[in-house]
Structures are given as structure tokens and as C-alpha cells.
């Protein structure tokens, strides 16, 4: 009996070691000369199905199957990473936001698109979006859209209180006080403790540069003076009770938008479709103003929030066809118009505004043509040397945790920023990367 038990244990251990030793690395095999290529595309951009349908109609030899997924940070990136690690189950094409691209590069998950048609079409894309898709001088994704920021505000409520939309952050704070004093259940906006990507954009606007790469050493400087300035500003508003601290993109916040308890939102150009989709009865009452500035002197600065690209994942059986589709999706004018109709954001191709469906008055904004009046200038005022690191998702987590603690009364937003700096450096080191702080 004892020997049997021993043999059984040895067999089990052997099985475990064999299974553990089998790590498969995805290899790209190009199948040329097959009749129809079948590609899978994972995305969550609303309205993208119309563009895919158009492609399938015009290109019967390359069929693209779109699978709508939850947004990347809600679990779809996790699915992509798991599929890449497992070596199968990954789609041919994937929607990847800019901040997540370095993470995929670290996991060796993307195909170099240069020789697959990107080199020829590089010049069509806005420079900074192309540079956020470029690693080691190779382009790994097709830029799709970005999110130049502006201030959405309830024009009717501002008019009633005799307020003009704030042009500086000081005016914003003063307006916050006026609004909340007039009606204690109204707040100018919310500071979402779980959406540090939004905070990152505000730090970006203030001139911070969190991440850089020199040679093979990364630099991390999250607790820079500009970032601390932004965090301290929102700390003051929070401590005075002049802003809400509810999570955005959640039912409670949508309800506040519907009822007029939240009256403004510093947001990206795609924010309009979020408001109109979730508070349709407030149509006609909103307008967009330029982002509040930190100083009245100097250049007008704006920032970018969100934005994504389409990438081809390693392990695809037909990278050539996939790249062809990805390039078409994001450069073809018909495709772009369909994507605009879905509210996907600000196109990544140069001079995409004029003559497109973006260049129209919007009834939701009371007839304002915000894209022409506000977002075009905003897009031109984005600091374009911002870069991301391979562990951006973890940095966002640290910031979220710190902000949540501050909202609960433990510490401040400034503390959260400083803690995130420390934790991010540790994250990068733990991944085996060279990093220096500051």
C-alpha cells in the first residue's frame, strides 16, 4: 500500500511538472493564398459594428467578425492577456487604449504593423497618437481616436445663477462655492475616486510629465510639483465640501446628471455621448466651454482623456489581412463617418474635422458646434510628449486606492499621489525593468 501511495505521489508530481513546463509562446503564421480570411475583432466602441458591416460588404474575401466586449479595463484586457499567455483564444484584432499599449508590448503580444502597410500610411495620422503607438521605432497599433478635453456645463443652471463658464481653475472653485451654497444638493462636478485616468489627464494639462524612457531605463515622476498642485486643488474643494465624490460612469452619477445635481463635467469630446446616452432629458441644456486654465498668462493648454487604437495580436493566422482592415477602419472617410456617428471620439487622422460629420451643430448642446468651436483648439493644445509605462494599469490602481482612502477621510489626494509614486517604482522593479524615480 505504502509503495502504491508513493508511486501515485510521484506520478502526480510528474504530471504537475510536465504541465507547468509546457509554456507555449504564440507564433505568427502567415497563411497566404487561402480563399477567405476570417478575422475576429474585440472592441467596445459604440457604433463600430456599422463600420465593420461596411467593410464586410466591400471586402468579401476578408471577413471580420466583431465581438462587442466590456471596456478594456473592465476585464477585456485581462481576457486578452490570458489568451495571449495561453497561446490560443486571442482575437486577431483588438481595441487597445493608448495607456495599455506598453503593457501589451511587455508581454510581447502585438504584431509590428510597419511592413504590413503602416509605413506607407504613417503620415495620415496625428503625430502624438502615432508616437504613442510606436515602440523601438516600430509601429504596433493603428491610432483610432483620442479625447481632447473641454468643460461640459449646464448652461441653463449657470444662466439662472448668473454665472459664466469658468475660464480658470480659480473661477471654477468660486463657481463651485456659488452653486453649492445656492442649492446644497447641487455640486459643480464630482471627483471620481475610482477613475484616476481622469485625474491623470488633469495632471497632463497642468504640465506634468509622469513617465519617460531613456535608453532602457524608465523614469517615473508622478509626484511632480504640477501633479501635487492639481491634487492639492481638489483636496481644498473636497475638504470644503464643494464637490461630490461619487464614482462617475455609475448609476448614482447618471441619476445626478438626470436630476441636475451635477452641473458640469471636465471631460473629453466623447463625453457628450455619455451624457446624452444617460441623461437624454437634459438635451438642449448643455454647452461646452474650453478647459479652465491654471494661469491667465501663457499658452492655452488642454489635455487628452482616453483614446484608443486598433492592434493586431500575436498568434493571428493572417496578420496581413488584419492590418489591412485596421488601417481601413481608421483612415477610410466612410468608416470614420460611421464611427463618428457612434460617438467614438476625436479621429486620429490629420484634418479629419473639416467636412466630416463632426462639423455640425449639436441639438444636445443647444445647437453649439462644439467640435469646431472648442475641441479643435483643444486638440491643438495638447502637450504631445506624454508617454505611458508598461504598468500603467497598476499605477491607476494605486491612485484609485489612495483617492478612495482620502474620500473616506484617511489622508489627502496629495498623499495618494506620493504613495502611487513609490508603489509604481516598486511595480516596475518587480517586473524586472530598470527604473529611476524623479
Amino acid at each position, binding site marked *: 500500500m505504502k509503495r502504491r501511495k508513493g508511486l501515485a505521489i510521484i506520478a502526480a508530481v510528474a504530471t504537475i511538472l510536465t504541465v507547468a513546463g509546457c509554456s507555449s509562446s504564440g507564433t505568427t503564421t502567415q497563411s497566404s493564398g487561402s480563399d477567405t480570411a476570417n478575422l475576429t475583432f474585440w472592441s467596445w466602441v459604440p457604433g463600430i459594428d456599422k463600420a465593420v458591416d461596411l467593410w464586410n460588404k466591400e471586402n468579401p474575401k476578408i471577413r471580420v467578425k466583431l465581438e462587442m466586449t466590456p471596456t478594456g479595463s473592465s476585464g477585456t484586457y485581462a481576457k486578452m492577456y490570458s489568451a495571449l499567455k495561453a497561446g490560443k483564444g486571442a482575437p486577431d484584432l483588438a481595441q487597445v487604449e493608448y495607456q495599455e499599449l506598453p503593457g501589451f508590448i*511587455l508581454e510581447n503580444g502585438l504584431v509590428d504593423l510597419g511592413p504590413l502597410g503602416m509605413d506607407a500610411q504613417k503620415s495620415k495620422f496625428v503625430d502624438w497618437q502615432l508616437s504613442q503607438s510606436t515602440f523601438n521605432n516600430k509601429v504596433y497599433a493603428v491610432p483610432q481616436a483620442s479625447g481632447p478635453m473641454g468643460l461640459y456645463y449646464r448652461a441653463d443652471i449657470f444662466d439662472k445663477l448668473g454665472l459664466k463658464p469658468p475660464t480658470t481653475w480659480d473661477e471654477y472653485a468660486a463657481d463651485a462655492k456659488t452653486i453649492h451654497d445656492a442649492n446644497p444638493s447641487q455640486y459643480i462636478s464630482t471627483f471620481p475616486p475610482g477613475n484616476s485616468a481622469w485625474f491623470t489627464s488633469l495632471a497632463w494639462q497642468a504640465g506634468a510629465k509622469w513617465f519617460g*524612457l531613456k535608453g532602457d531605463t524608465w523614469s517615473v515622476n508622478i509626484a511632480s510639483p504640477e501633479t501635487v498642485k492639481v491634487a492639492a486643488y481638489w483636496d481644498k474643494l473636497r475638504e470644503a465640501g464643494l464637490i461630490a465624490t461619487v464614482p462617475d460612469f*455609475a448609476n448614482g452619477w447618471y441619476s445626478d446628471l438626470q436630476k441636475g445635481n451635477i452641473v458640469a463635467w471636465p471631460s473629453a469630446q466623447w463625453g457628450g455621448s455619455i451624457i446624452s446616452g444617460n441623461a437624454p432629458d437634459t438635451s438642449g441644456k448643455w454647452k461646452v466651454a474650453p478647459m479652465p486654465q491654471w494661469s491667465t498668462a501663457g499658452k492655452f493648454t488642454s489635455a487628452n482623456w482616453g483614446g484608443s487604437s486598433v492592434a493586431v495580436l500575436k498568434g493571428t493566422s493572417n496578420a496581413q489581412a488584419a492590418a489591412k482592415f485596421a488601417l481601413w477602419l481608421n483612415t477610410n472617410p466612410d468608416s470614420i463617418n460611421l464611427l463618428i456617428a457612434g460617438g467614438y471620439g476625436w479621429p486620429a487622422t490629420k484634418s479629419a474635422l473639416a467636412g466630416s460629420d463632426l462639423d455640425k451643430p449639436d441639438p444636445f448642446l443647444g445647437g453649439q458646434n462644439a467640435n469646431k468651436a472648442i475641441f479643435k483648439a483643444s486638440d491643438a493644445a495638447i502637450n504631445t510628449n506624454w508617454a505611458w509605462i508598461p504598468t500603467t494599469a497598476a499605477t491607476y490602481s494605486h491612485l484609485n486606492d489612495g483617492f*478612495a482612502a482620502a474620500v473616506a*477621510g484617511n489622508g489627502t489626494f496629495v498623499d495618494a499621489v506620493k504613495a502611487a509614486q513609490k508603489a509604481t517604482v516598486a511595480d516596475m522593479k*518587480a517586473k*524586472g525593468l530598470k527604473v529611476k524615480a524623479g
Partner: protein
Amino acid sequence: MKSTRTRTRIAVLGLLGPFVVLFIFTLVVPIGYALFQSFTATQRSGAYGNGDSSTVFVGFTNYVRALTDPAFVASLGRVLLFAVVQVPIMIVLATVLALMLDAASARGVRFFRSVYFLPYGVPGVVASLLWGFLYTPGLSPIIDISKTFGVQLDFLGSGSILFSIANIVIWQYAGYNMLVIVAQLKSIDADLFEAAAIDGANSWQVITRIKLPLIAPAIVLTTVFTIIGTLQLFGEPLVLRPLSSAITSSYTPNLSAYNQAFTNNNYNLAAAESVILALIACAFSFGFLKLVGRRRSS
């Protein structure tokens, strides 16, 4: 003689075999792999790893990293606190409900038994979503009604979120635990009640002298299950996270391991955290069983 033995052996293999095979492949192998992963790490070179990554054995580094992470240690403390508060409430409630159903003067027993058990039939995620709506200000009738009485209820704030989660867990599982205890109650010999009636015992004495001592094994069982389940708390914080600013990415150890694995791609760290949690759950379960066993034999 030999053939009977072989026949018995074949019968045993045939009946137990499928279970053992599934057990090994769905439990033993993944646990073994997780243990293996917890002792290794990935080494990279260059700015982006550049494909030069290798898996190296690093001993207890991942465990040290997990245990020196203040957020993870805080999450362990949090679930222990949660267990200390929630387990007694759950067990007491389940026992009280079971005793009420078993009382001689009980009416509509079958109806109430179904009603108490019904929440267990609601899938965990659906239950959390349901209660999430009831907790969200602006959407919850409870909060609206209490506002008219001047009471400002905040279910999702940092001071109350743990209680809100406990509420969901108790609502879901009290009925299930109650049924386990009811089953044990039904197996008590009716002669004992007759004898008690003859001796002039009132219903309170029947409960404390006969029923409670005899359902002790069922209470022990449900307590062990509840401890194990509570320490693994995961679904409720995960679903409530978008609604509450108080739930962080490492609110419970399980949630922390999940985020480390699937948001940060730190599979090795996640494996170490899972092993630590499993060891703690084992320690508490076996510790509790030993404590109860020693008391009963003394």
C-alpha cells in the same frame, strides 16, 4: 477469494475513478501549478523585455512581497474582522430560524421554509447587483423613504460598506445554513420530547437542554463552512466596486489576488497571495474544529 477481491477493487475504481480523475485535474493540478508559480518569477531584459523573458526560481520572494504589502495585510485583517462579526450573526440567525420552524406551535412551516431559503437560489452576482441598486442614493426607495423621515442613510460609505456586504452575505446564506440545522433537528428522536413533556419541561428548557446540544454537530459544520466562505469574500466587493468609492482593488485577499493576476499580470504574486489565503483558511477551520472537539471530549 482472489476474484472477489479483484471484483471489489474494480468496483471501487469504477465508482470512485471518475471523481478522483476530475478531482486531480480540477483541484490538485491547478493547486500544484499555483504553488509552482508562487515560487517563481519572470526575469526580463531591455526596456520592454524584448522577448528575452525567462522564468526563474525565486524562493519566498513573492510571499515576502505579499506580506510586506500593507494593502494585502490590511485586506487579511479586514476579512478576519468581517468573519469575527458576521459568522456569529449568521449562525445565531440560522439557528433561531431553524428552531422557530421546528417549534411545536409553528404555522405555515413549509411556506416559511421556502421563503427563508429563497435568497440562496439567487445567483451571487445577481444578489449583489440587486442590493447595489437598493444601496445607491438616487435609485434606492429605502434611502428615499428614510429621507422623508429626516434620516440620511449611507450604505456605500467607508464606515458602512462592510456592514452592507455582510447584509448581502447573511441574506443569501442564512436560509441555507438554516436548512442544514433543520435537517439535524428532524433527526432528533421524538422519544426525547415525550420524556421531556412527562418531566414537565417548558419549551425554553426543551430548546436549551435537548435541541441545542443535539444539533451541535450541524452548528459546527455550518460554522466551518461560513468561516471558509467568509475568508474568501470576493463576489460582493467585486460587483459593488463600481458603485462605492470605499472598495479598493485589494479590499479582500481574494480580490487582491484577482487584480494582481488579471489587471497587473503579476501571476506569481497572485499565486503567493492565494496560497497565503488558503493556509489561513485551513488554519482557522482546523483550529475551530480542534477547539470544538476538545471541548466536547472534556
